[in-house]
């Protein structure tokens, strides 16, 4: 069969179709006009026109996070790309597989300070897994294949392909490679069996074993394996913010999220265990606090990670295992199934007694609203859980509301909790809900946000109208940048510098102006009913503005630089 001769623009579109992509999120502009012309002529995938390039990347990112498919974003050169950078950096920090295609000025104009020119490869280099500038149309198909391959294998991440406009006009014979190998890119994906054996032995001989899992379990679709292994071993299990849903929150072995705003029992168990098994998690500063304080003589640490550089980066590890989490866990399960040995039941019972004592502290408490008092934000999240049967896809922005969502909406399944953990990007909530809803058209998708974050990508309400995206926006409106205000209250002598927001818009009218349903809820007694009503409006976006108690803080809390056992609990204040 002879290969068809196609233009660069046709090749881009064909490559995207070959990768079975359903949606491309983007925004047109001069440098990508040829590509848009080809998108117009095809029906293999749909294009979603956002209102700002940042949202295109966030939506594509959430499309990846909430499904097993890959998100694709398409932006033009110059400002199109610079607007996309926040989205790219957000995806990079959370290891999200995605491909970003950016237009570039024609090759002859590169370096001439041309209109809408920027050094895309240079600007994005530190926040992508890899990037390419295509200088010859003959390299285009192979480069696109490499981009998808690199993005989805090893430790996943965003890959950017920068395509000058003249390349999209040039033609060449097209063939999309089925398979690809690269001599310089061969990530280790199979865990070392000897190390896996050592890990199993350590866990079987542990007196106080603890399992701590992160985003790697979710990204590698290893939740079933993890759940099986944890139940076989009978140990407590905690998830990081990124790992929520990797182990069912309703399971009695789950001790809650750990870290800066994690549970007392999870943090104490991390600190006091004798064998710690870290699965697809990276001991970051918001999780273990101060590494010096975290260190315990005699505690053994096992760490599975796909990225060797995540191992022994902040915390020394005794048994490192590099490989895909899912395969390593499968191998561990197989080893356990062939052996009758299990952790010493007497020791395990004693350990659980200790853990239960910690649990009896009931660290996740807040004072319920009394009488006509203000709405408690935590109560809104709990009511949302009830109204959605605990099975919604929840996106969040960044701040107090994000922590309350993580604490008070327990997730039993992976890929249901979509938030910016690493970069902590305010403004992701609405675009994340767009991507998640398009990837899961039948799911209830709710965006838990605050009046600060939501205004950072509020323009996407227009996109939601155009594509009928019926998300529920839960705006926990405390008239202040809550997490900043909380730190100012605790550590800056109540000097609330610029954390109070004056002149907020009327969110109900704003939602209506965009063609959506708006609700304002001011009484605690109305929360439950309003949420049920909103969830029942299946085909409408409902913007729910909850006027909440502005004095509420997130507890427990480990102050920055402190250790896991140095939590501040609500009752202590």
């Amino acid at each position: 069969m002879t290969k068809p001769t196609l233009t660069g623009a046709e090749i881009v579109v064909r490559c995207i179709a070959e990768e079975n992509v359903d949606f491309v999120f983007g925004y047109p502009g001069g440098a990508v006009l040829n590509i848009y012309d080809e998108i117009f002529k095809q029906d293999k995938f749909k294009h979603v026109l956002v209102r700002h390039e940042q949202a295109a990347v966030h939506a594509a990112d959430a499309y990846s996070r909430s499904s097993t498919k890959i998100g694709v974003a398409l932006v033009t050169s110059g400002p199109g790309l610079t607007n996309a950078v926040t989205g790219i950096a957000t995806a990079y920090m959370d290891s999200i597989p995605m491909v970003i295609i950016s237009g570039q000025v024609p090759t002859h104009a590169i370096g001439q300070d041309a209109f809408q020119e920027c050094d895309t490869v240079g600007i994005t280099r530190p926040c992508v897994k890899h990037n390419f500038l295509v200088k010859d149309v003959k390299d285009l198909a192979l480069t696109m294949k490499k981009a998808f391959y690199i993005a989805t294998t090893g430790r996943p991440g965003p890959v950017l392909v920068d395509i000058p406009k003249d390349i999209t006009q040039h033609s060449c014979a097209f063939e999309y490679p089925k398979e690809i190998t690269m001599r310089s890119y061969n990530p280790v994906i199979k865990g070392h069996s000897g190390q896996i054996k050592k890990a199993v032995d350590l866990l079987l001989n542990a007196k106080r074993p603890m399992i701590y899992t992160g985003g790697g379990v979710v990204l590698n679709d290893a939740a079933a394996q993890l759940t099986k292994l944890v139940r076989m071993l009978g140990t407590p299990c905690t998830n990081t913010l990124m790992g929520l849903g990797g182990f069912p929150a309703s399971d009695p072995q789950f001790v809650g999220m750990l870290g800066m705003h994690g549970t007392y029992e999870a943090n104490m168990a991390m600190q006091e265990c004798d064998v710690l098994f870290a699965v697809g998690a990276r001991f970051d500063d918001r999780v273990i606090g101060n590494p010096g304080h975290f260190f315990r003589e005699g505690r053994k640490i096992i760490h599975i990670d796909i990225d060797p550089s995540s191992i022994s980066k902040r915390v020394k590890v005794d048994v490192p295992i590099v490989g895909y989490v899912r395969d390593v866990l499968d191998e561990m399960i197989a080893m356990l199934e062939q052996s009758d040995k299990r952790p010493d039941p007497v020791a395990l019972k004693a350990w659980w007694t200790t853990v239960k004592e910690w649990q009896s502290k009931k660290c996740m408490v807040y004072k319920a609203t009394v009488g006509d008092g203000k709405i408690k934000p935590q109560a809104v999240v709990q009511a949302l859980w009830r109204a959605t049967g605990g099975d919604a896809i929840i996106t969040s922005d960044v701040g107090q509301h994000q922590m309350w969502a993580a604490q008070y909406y327990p997730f039993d399944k992976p890929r249901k909790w979509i938030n910016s953990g690493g970069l902590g990007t305010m403004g992701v909530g609405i675009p994340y809900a767009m991507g998640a809803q398009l990837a899961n058209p039948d799911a209830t998708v709710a965006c838990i946000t605050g009046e600060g974050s939501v205004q950072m990508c509020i323009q996407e309400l227009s996109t939601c109208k155009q594509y009928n995206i019926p998300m529920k926006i839960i705006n926990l409106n405390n008239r202040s940048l809550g997490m900043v205000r909380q730190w100012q209250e605790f550590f800056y002598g109540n000097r609330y510098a610029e954390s109070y927001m004056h002149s907020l818009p009327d969110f109900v009218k704003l939602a209506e102006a965009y063609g959506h349903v708006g609700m304002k809820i001011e009484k605690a007694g109305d929360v439950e009913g309003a949420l049920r009503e909103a969830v029942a409006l299946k085909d409408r976006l409902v913007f729910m503005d909850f006027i909440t108690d502005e004095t509420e803080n997130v507890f427990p809390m480990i102050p920055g630089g402190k250790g896991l056992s140095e939590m501040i609990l609500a009752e202590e204040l």
Partner: protein
Amino acid sequence: MRHILSVLLENEAGALSRVVGLFSARGYNIDSLSVATTEDITMSRMTIVTHGSDDVIEQITKQLNKLIEVVKVVDLTDGNHIERELMLVKVRAAGKDRDEMKRMADIFRGRILDVTDKSYTIELTGDSHKLDAFISAIEPGVILETVRTGASGIGRGERILKI
């Protein structure tokens, strides 16, 4: 501690900036860096001289390996190796200094590449210590200009870095 890392990487536009960007982004030190293509023109070889604790060097090695264009990374200081650096020094060579400079160049097995009636340009190769020693052996006032390549390194004997 001082380490010499040898890096084989794809000879592609931008590969060098990824390596340099990695060092600056993560706060690692580059004492010197030299790079050129190998006998296979699709591949470049880079020698990076850096210093740091064992943990830092381990991270540098892992982070370098993570770069998509990097094919192999070897820490030459893990075993026997040879390192050489080239320096060109332009010195004032007039009057009584002229014979003295010639003598110093000979002692350090330097070669005089260019001569004027007032100056010599001397080529010196050796490890960095030897080049440093030459600089400190001559009077600072006579040095007009120096340029150094940074170290290149290779393993001794059967140690071979190749794909």
